[in-house]
């Protein structure tokens, strides 16, 4: 098979680089409610955590309040038409500058066991650092490849 007419353009002056960097920390807590009224209790639990985080001065740059089974994936608009679920899982996540503040977020969800709507269960907490990846363009001349042979 013969192929013709190939052509090209000048190579770009930049190279794409994916850079990993320590971006932030994320704290998270989850708790579930079941049966009649579980949706209302889940919503109340989210309100309580939101107010508690404010009252106790937890430093966050971003907060997210989800009901798994209702609106955790795509938000309130797309979830609006659905019927009430049998169970809901509250999920609160927040972005913090350090691990200490991240841990406080999970704790404010865990305390709903005894300081929140009735019969919350199955608490899960986590606090982790976030290594984010950003793609940037580097001037080509800054990349100096070297080759080193190690062992044989």
């Amino acid at each position: 098979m013969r192929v013709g007419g190939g052509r090209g353009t000048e190579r770009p002056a930049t190279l794409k680089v994916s850079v990993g960097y320590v971006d932030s920390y994320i704290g998270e807590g989850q708790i579930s409610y079941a049966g009649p009224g579980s949706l209302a209790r889940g919503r109340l639990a989210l309100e309580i955590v939101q107010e508690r985080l404010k009252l106790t001065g937890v430093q966050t740059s971003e907060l997210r309040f989800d009901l798994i089974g209702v609106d955790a994936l795509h938000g309130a608009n797309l979830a609006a038409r659905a019927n009430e679920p049998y169970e809901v899982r509250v999920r609160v996540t927040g972005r913090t500058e350090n691990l200490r503040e991240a841990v406080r977020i999970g704790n404010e969800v865990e305390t709903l066991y005894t300081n929140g709507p009735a019969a919350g269960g199955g608490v899960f907490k986590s606090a982790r650092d976030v290594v984010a990846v950003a793609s940037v363009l580097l001037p080509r001349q800054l990349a100096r490849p070297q080759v080193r042979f190690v062992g044989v």
Partner: protein
Amino acid sequence: MKLREIAHSRTGDKGNTSNISVIAYDETHYPLLLAQVTSARVKAHFAGVAEGEVVRYELPNIAALNFVMTQTLGGGVTRSLALDAHGKSLSSALLDLEIEPASDNE
């Protein structure tokens, strides 16, 4: 009818951008997709989710559309707070779109 009755969909992600394909099961439905699954409609459907622009690309040879939605993934999979950080489930949300069947008069 729902879009999912006449098409399937896959979602990809790159940084804070999601792209969602819509592929007709039957190529005779492609004109329906072209007419009714517009970028404006998709942007409205994803209000509160897609915070940036929604651009539609057309692939007529495979009866497909590809929607590129910026500022959709909470900063990108490596740092997002979202449960579905890649946005893989967004294809299901798009397939819930209502489609008017072609009328018999046409």
